[in-house]
């Protein structure tokens, strides 16, 4: 069975931190560079996110994603470097095209912030079991129905990927070419869409039935199978992050 999420099972402190604290971290990581819009806040926040990824021992797993986003952001750097509105100081020339410092700095700011946000989300996604996340949210008062929808969303893509594999096996077993050139793959993929969607719907129907016969719709508060995941320093961490954000706001106002 293909793994049902991006979650990477590792033994690390970051893995033990509860999902809510990680959500708070994402909020803080997004908020701080907005409150203090200097380039330094941006790169420091980014660095912190990466260090946490490293502590969670998932930095290598996140490199492809960070690399992909970084590659896209490279185009921002190039475009801003050449064409940013406030461009004045020429850094170097590419042929007769001047590349400016202002544009570069502006683009760096965007890049650092974007990578910071990506990193913060990756911390949550790579070191938290989706089911743990949903369960914590339900404990915090989210309706179990919405929780179920959320966890379905987490599962549906890997599940569809598994279905694609199954049907691909059925097709190539009976002589339809699905390997090799990109064109062949695309041609093989198109007729897959119908069966994959259909089979996902059948799965959903069956799961609904399975949930209903086991009393998912029963009113009243539910118990949980798993121990609540509590990290010893979780609430201290959340309060300090809140303090940092508030501190940043005050700084912004008085400075």
């Amino acid at each position: 069975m293909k793994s049902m999420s991006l979650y990477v099972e590792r033994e690390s402190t970051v893995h033990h931190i509860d999902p809510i604290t990680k959500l708070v971290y994402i909020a803080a990581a997004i908020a701080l560079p907005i409150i203090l819009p200097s380039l330094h806040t941006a790169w420091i926040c980014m660095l912190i996110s990466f260090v946490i990824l490293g502590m969670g021992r998932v930095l290598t797993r996140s490199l492809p994603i960070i690399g992909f986003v970084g590659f896209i952001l490279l185009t921002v750097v190039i475009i801003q470097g050449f064409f940013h509105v406030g461009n004045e100081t020429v850094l170097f020339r590419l042929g007769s095209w001047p590349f400016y410092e202002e544009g570069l700095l502006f683009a760096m700011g965007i890049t650092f912030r974007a990578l910071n946000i990506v990193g913060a989300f990756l911390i949550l996604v790579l070191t938290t079991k989706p089911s743990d996340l949903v369960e914590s949210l339900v404990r915090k008062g989210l309706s179990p129905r919405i929780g179920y929808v959320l966890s379905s969303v987490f599962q549906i893509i890997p599940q569809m990927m598994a279905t694609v594999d199954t049907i691909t096996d059925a097709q190539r077993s009976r002589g339809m070419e699905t390997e090799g050139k990109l064109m062949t793959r695309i041609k093989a993929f198109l007729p897959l869409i119908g069966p994959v969607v259909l089979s996902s719907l059948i799965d959903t129907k069956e799961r609904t039935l399975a949930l209903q016969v086991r009393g998912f719709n029963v009113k009243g508060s539910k118990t949980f199978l798993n121990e609540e995941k509590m990290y010893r320093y979780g609430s201290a961490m959340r309060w300090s992050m809140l303090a940092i954000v508030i501190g940043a706001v005050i700084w912004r106002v008085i400075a």
Partner: protein
Amino acid sequence: MIKIQDVCFGYNEGQDVLQGLTLEFDQRTTAIIGQNGAGKTTLVKLLKGLLKPTGGDIWVAGVNSKDVTVAQLAGKIGLVFQNPNDQIFKRTVLEEVMFGPLNMKVETAAAKQQALQALEMVGLADQTDVNPHDLGLSEKKLISIASIVAMNTDIIILDEPTIAQDAAGKRRIAQIIEQLSQEGKLVMTILHDMDFVAAHFERTIVMNRGKVVLDDKTREVFSHQDLLREACLDTPYVTQLGKQWGLPETVLTTEELISAMKRPR
């Protein structure tokens, strides 16, 4: 027709599901038996090319499975999946059964002919326009058998064809296996029903934990009660009955048992 040499395979690194299998297959009807998780399905998926060995080589009709795509191999070897739901993806029974022949570049009319013949063989010729997913498991299994038979390959592998079948269904599957074998095809079948194996297969291969523990004529295999027990398998009821009656030979069918018991002692 198939040769495998020192084949190893594992789904996860460090956990070999198959540990160095060397086998050769000829036209004899061949049964593969073994407890759940022994690696039977894994073995036939390797033969089919759906999985590639992590060590060793597999030749199907003279071609190394590493050198061709599954689709290129499809004209030579057909596999009926263990779970028909994994195999069926078209919206009508006829489309499903015609899918293989059409990929083999058979003309539409001829493909339809082949499909209808195969459906006739499994007794579903009157269900051509039905959506396969509206049928029961036993019928789905028969459809998946028909869609492989329709491709007319020289090698046909059936992964547990008798699941969900009643007595009539089993008789029908036995007939199909016999007919395909008479056409000179290699029919290889994974089974949990020992009586069925004893009655219909010339050769039997016993697998346990990724290894072949016995590989011989069916009668010979079922005479090794102890080895089979080690592999968590039973011998057929008639065979057990014969043993307890004190027969020196291994009997495989009711007829054999009766005639042996009538023999003056």
